[in-house]
């Protein structure tokens, strides 16, 4: 009796994205399976100054947060603009995807995506300089993410180099 209408079951905000973790230990099928059951979200485009407390406050709006792991620069061990948020239930994580993804935290539009689950080591940026890969090649100036991208920084003459 309780016939559902597929046409009405659209829930696109919780769909799995195209991104796949290249360092994932396992095949594509296994990764996708984990993504579809996961209670953990990757959160990107954070400011380097965004704190665990701010993340907790925002993401608690969609349910009880089990754990937050702030992403760190591999070299400096300081925040480098991403984090993982793990919920106790999948349903709460889905609400975050529906209602928090694409809204602002610390004045920046943040992006959430399903994550296959935190494993030790995944809290570090994978860019050559220690931060996230996206900050290696970025051309724009973003004061909340260390200014210019790392590559662009190398091409900018510094004060020290120009003076004698």
């Amino acid at each position, binding site marked *: 009796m309780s016939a559902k209408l597929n046409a009405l079951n*659209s829930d696109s905000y919780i769909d799995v994205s195209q991104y796949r973790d290249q360092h994932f230990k396992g095949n594509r099928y296994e990764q996708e399976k984990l993504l579809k059951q996961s209670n953990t979200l990757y959160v990107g485009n954070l400011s380097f100054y965004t704190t665990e*407390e701010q993340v907790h406050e925002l993401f608690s709006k969609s349910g009880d947060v089990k754990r937050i792991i702030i992403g760190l620069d591999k070299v400096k061990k300081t925040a480098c603009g991403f984090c993982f948020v793990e919920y106790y239930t999948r349903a709460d994580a889905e609400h975050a995807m*529906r209602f928090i993804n694409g809204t602002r935290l610390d004045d920046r539009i943040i992006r959430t995506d399903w994550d296959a689950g935190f494993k030790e080591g995944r809290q570090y940026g994978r860019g050559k300089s220690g931060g996230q890969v996206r900050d290696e090649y970025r051309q724009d100036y973003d004061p909340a993410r260390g200014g210019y991208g790392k590559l662009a920084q190398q091409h900018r003459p510094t004060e020290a180099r120009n003076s004698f």
Partner: protein
Amino acid sequence: MDLCSFFLSFSGGQPHKRRRTSEPIEIEDRLESLICRVGEKSTSSLESNLEGLAGVLEADLPNYKNKILRILCAVARLLPEKLTVYTTLVGLLNARNYNFGGEFVEAMIRQLKETLKNNLYNEAVYLVRFLSDLVNCHVIAAPSMVAMFENFISVTQEEDVPQVRSDWFVYVVLSCLPWVGKELYEKKDVEMDRLLSQIEGYLKRRVKTHVPMLQVWTAEKPHPQEEYLDCLWAQIQKLKKDRWQERHILRPYIAFDSVLCEALQHNLPPFTPPGHMPDAQYPMPRVIFRMFDYTDAPEGPVMPGSHSVERFVIEENLHCIIKTHWKERKTCAAQLLSYPGKNKIPLNYHIVELAQATEMLYMRLDTMNTTCIDRLINWFSHHLSNFQFRWSWDDWSDCLTVDLEKPKPKFVKEVLEKSMRLSYHQRIVDIVPPTFSALIPAEPLFIYKYEDESASSLPGYAVTVTVGNAIKNRASNEEILTILKEVPNPNQEDDDDEGESFNPLKIEVFLQTLLHLAAKSFSHSFSALGKFHEILKTLTDSDEGKLHILKVVYEVWRNHPQMIAVLVDKMIRTQVVDCAAVANWLFSQDMAHEFTRLFIWEILHSTIRKMNKHVQKIQKELEEAKDKLEKQQHKRVSLFMDKNSEDEEGQLEEQIERLQEKVESAQSEQKNLFLVIFQRFIMLLTEHLVRCETGSVDISTPWYKNCIERLQQIFLMHHVTIQQYMGTLENLLFTAELDHHILAVYQQFCALQL
């Protein structure tokens, strides 16, 4: 683009036979899509789309009749905001195929019975409304619809049934009248008058104890907060006075009148409302929320009055749109903004004018229910955080002129506190004018009792240094416990015990030091609690220990309520403290000065929710084990019994016994938690009431309003769980001896399901 969509984009095409031999699932999906999306994104008119679709479906009936029936029944139930679109479609199909019309009506009646049986009362309303609009489409004969309504209203004559049961049947009938009142009155005015008069009699004798608990504002001005049936009755009365002229509802069937009036109608089978069952869960009564009237939208179309039936219809439709599309926020917004008929009502103004709405809500804070103020605080701070915290705070400088415990300054204070959580302290200092400095939250810093040399005279100081160093040097739990043995127990004269009994100083010394070292972030503190879990468990072995640990957490983090909340949460989850301890702590004298702050209630409700989830989890485990045993027993019957399956069964039975005990123990803990909470409320409120009485002082202080509404909130937020324990509550706590102010809250709550 498939043939059907291509075909439908033309107006008034010929019906066309489908010769495809696709997968059945594909066909079903395509049919669903066609039906669900009729009229959307089309250059042709809705009427021509409907005509086209009717043709396609008629052609498909020989092969796909059941699927089409299923889909149409489903849209009747799940797409109520497009009711008249689909009744028109059914009307057209009925005109072309009388038997199909009959089968559809039968299927709807079956579906109605099912939804009622399954306590799906909201969906049942949509089904009855659909049936009633089918009268307008010449599918159902008016007299048989009136007969169904008469059967519904006869429920009001039933004795010994909950009021909410007869309420629902009255509601269903009244809520159909905007759609079908005119037609029914034209055909059966005598019967309809009798029906309405019976309804009027019922509404007069109805009990409305529940209303105060559900009102957003306690004041009648500027808009009365009406009980939902009273409001609907007034709206129907006005509609009747206007001779059932209803101009808002989109009625595509009017364009097809010449076709439809040729159709043969069906009679609804006599429908006896299912009898009352003890486990029935009727919808609870509501109070209609009103905050705008015609004076609030000065330009553009006029806002329909609160007793105009348009108001009812529009609110229903907007409500349905949100319910249907909540998962897809962009779609939902688009649907709301493209609401048909939006040009005749100030829709955009009232959806989009958040600033004005906020302003209006702020102005009426003094009489607003505390729970609603909570929601406003959470919404507004979250909203601000998405708009760089820009707000004209000076417009609200009136809040600075009154006592800070009054609703307006309190609201602003809580908003700033929440805003700080989403940003940082200096940001808040920067965004408010200097005049608001008294409302700015404290900087969320740790307060360490043993901070500097001046603390060296405090008892236990020396141990804090030793313990601190031990922790930094990664000492083991045993080593630290040994160090802690040095802490004197202020509760005892001699120390001839092993130091095992409750020692508040020991707790203080250890916890202050540990939390101070871990103060950097939530993760640091959680890690600390985890690492020294053993020690914490030892220290909090007694109830006093649990209470004291909470006290210390508050002492050190009292400027950082967010941290307090997450630490308490962690301590419950790791069983360092239990839920009752948290409740007792929140209601303790030490916390009385914080009693009206939002974070207190967030912690309490979070604690109750954890308790509820814990019980549900074990109940689920028990159910699963029982299912497993049942499966095992079935297997045993069919195969021969061997030692292995016998053992397995025995193990399962043992497991079930253990889980049964666990469930009982958890439920007992849950009941105890509510008893503690209610008991504490009663004590506090009684104290206040007695004090006021003896001093001949008005009881209605801001504190009292806050407290009594917090009590209401406990009932409303956890009503499902609390209903299990009503017997105990009534016998032990909410007895006739209680002050009537407190008892009234309990009675209002009971009235919600009576």
